[in-house]
């Protein structure tokens, strides 16, 4: 053993499965029809922790704080499956009455055309249309419904993993989504309203997880990564001071950042090594990749920094074109 160094870890501090509301096994009591699936809407819960040694990504909601808040507002355990939208929202026809909640990106929410608040419980009547519009700030909205969306689980999770293709396919128009049994038993008691550890629980606006846009550039707190010593002094200065731009190719796998190239002393690839949520790789062209929920379990480019979990919501909600700065915390 030559060295051991730490890094900020996965977005979910709690084990999976605790208090999951619906697993497809529960009796469906209501359902929802997808009238408009939006650009990319998937079912997400807490993902598949504990399987990375088999090559299975963690996956799960990109903004766990927003997922937890949506579930609390809807009366669910924090890990219940919710919908995660991408930029253009989603429209859902409720075939039965239900309590719903929308969190995440700043976006207009309408019930049969009438504006309703995001970040509050919404009582939806049978036949009503809940429409989450295009994000005005941020990227991903989260829609929870009391009872949770009941889709078949794969490896203990309802999450769609876009890297490895595990879990249900993204939503399509006309699709019917079952809703699980309304929690009420002791086994499915709603999560108490406390901030749980994880990305976005302490930053990104709102300690309870309601995304609040930042006025200037998005500021991400970072720790030095295991390959931070590959940077030249100029490279360190660039990382600490320069502004980067979120690239259009960003997705659930990674936030891709372009900007003034970050200079490194050596460019060689490493033997592949394990990757955590928030790991920031420096590519040979000087651009940066910050790994998010659907990240590969191993990678070969140097990890020069790790985004702190407090930056989780900000990473999930950073839209293409947004400016990003880093703030180094923890000693070098």
């Amino acid at each position, binding site marked *: *053993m030559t060295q*051991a160094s730490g890094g900020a870890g996965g977005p979910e501090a709690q084990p999976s499965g605790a208090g999951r509301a619906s697993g497809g096994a529960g009796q469906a009591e209501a359902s929802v029809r997808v009238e408009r699936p939006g650009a990319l809407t998937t079912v997400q819960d807490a993902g598949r922790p504990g399987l990375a040694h088999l090559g299975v990504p963690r996956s799960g909601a990109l903004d766990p704080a927003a997922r937890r808040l949506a579930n609390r507002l809807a009366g669910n355990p924090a890990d219940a499956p919710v919908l995660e939208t991408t930029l253009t929202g989603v429209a859902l026809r409720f075939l039965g009455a239900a309590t719903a909640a929308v969190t995440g990106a700043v976006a207009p929410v309408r019930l049969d055309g009438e504006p309703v608040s995001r970040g509050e419980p919404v009582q939806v009547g049978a036949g009503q249309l809940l429409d989450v519009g295009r994000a005005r700030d941020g990227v991903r909205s989260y829609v929870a419904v009391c009872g949770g969306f009941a889709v078949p689980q794969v490896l203990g999770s309802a999450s769609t993993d876009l890297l490895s293709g595990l879990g249900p396919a993204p939503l399509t128009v006309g699709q019917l989504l079952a809703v699980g049994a309304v929690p009420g038993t002791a086994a499915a008691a709603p999560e108490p309203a406390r901030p749980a550890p994880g990305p976005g629980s302490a930053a990104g606006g709102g300690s309870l997880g309601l995304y609040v846009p930042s006025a200037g550039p998005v500021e991400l707190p970072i720790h030095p990564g295991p390959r931070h010593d590959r940077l030249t002094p100029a490279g360190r200065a660039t990382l600490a001071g320069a502004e980067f731009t979120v690239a259009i190719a960003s997705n659930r796998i990674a936030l891709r950042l372009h900007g003034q190239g970050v200079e490194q002393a050596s460019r060689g690839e490493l033997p592949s090594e*394990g990757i955590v949520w928030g790991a920031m790789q420096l590519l040979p062209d000087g651009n940066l990749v910050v790994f998010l929920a659907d990240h590969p379990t191993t990678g070969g480019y140097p990890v020069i920094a790790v985004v702190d979990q407090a930056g989780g919501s900000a990473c999930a909600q950073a839209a293409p074109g947004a400016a990003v700065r880093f703030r180094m915390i*923890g000693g070098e």
Partner: protein
Amino acid sequence: MGPSAVLVELDDLDAVLALHAEIERRRARGWAPSLIDVIPAARTILLDGITDSGAIAAELRGWDVPPAAEPVGPVVDIPCRYDGEDLAAVAALWRVSEREAARRHASGTYRVAFCGFAPGFAYLTGLSEQLAVPRRPSPRTAVPAGSVGVAGTFTGIYPRPSPGGWQIIGRTDAVTWDASQDPPALLAPGTRVRFVDVDR
């Protein structure tokens, strides 16, 4: 570094296998219960989901890790038909006939060093340095599930259809990945593997 993960760097794959075995032994006895993922790789082990990375790092440095002993436990037999598209190229690199190349590959006992690339893709160690082969100059865009390949001193089985750059020497009907099973992967780190030539 940060609060909840430690990347342990090691000298070589043997040291990875030894420490990984020690970590799993200790985890089975309740060590570091907050750990979520332990990811061995070629020269590193990542421990993700810890509460005090400094303390864990210090503790790991103090361990007296026994060398990677002969592994115990079951051996998984993989029936293999050696008719891969790259068998001739690999046999040429080894300077033997195709039948002899098949015999050599099927004569070893391998061990899963780590998984990665795709769910259930196991990097099997045990091929000697003399039998190391390069990857293909350019990867194939589609490699069928069950393809048996070699690259460097590793051999492996593609669990699902995917792109791939390894030299394909054969194929197997063994199912190495089934998400509906527990565990979903046939080959986990530490598992021993033999290839059985079905044409012999």
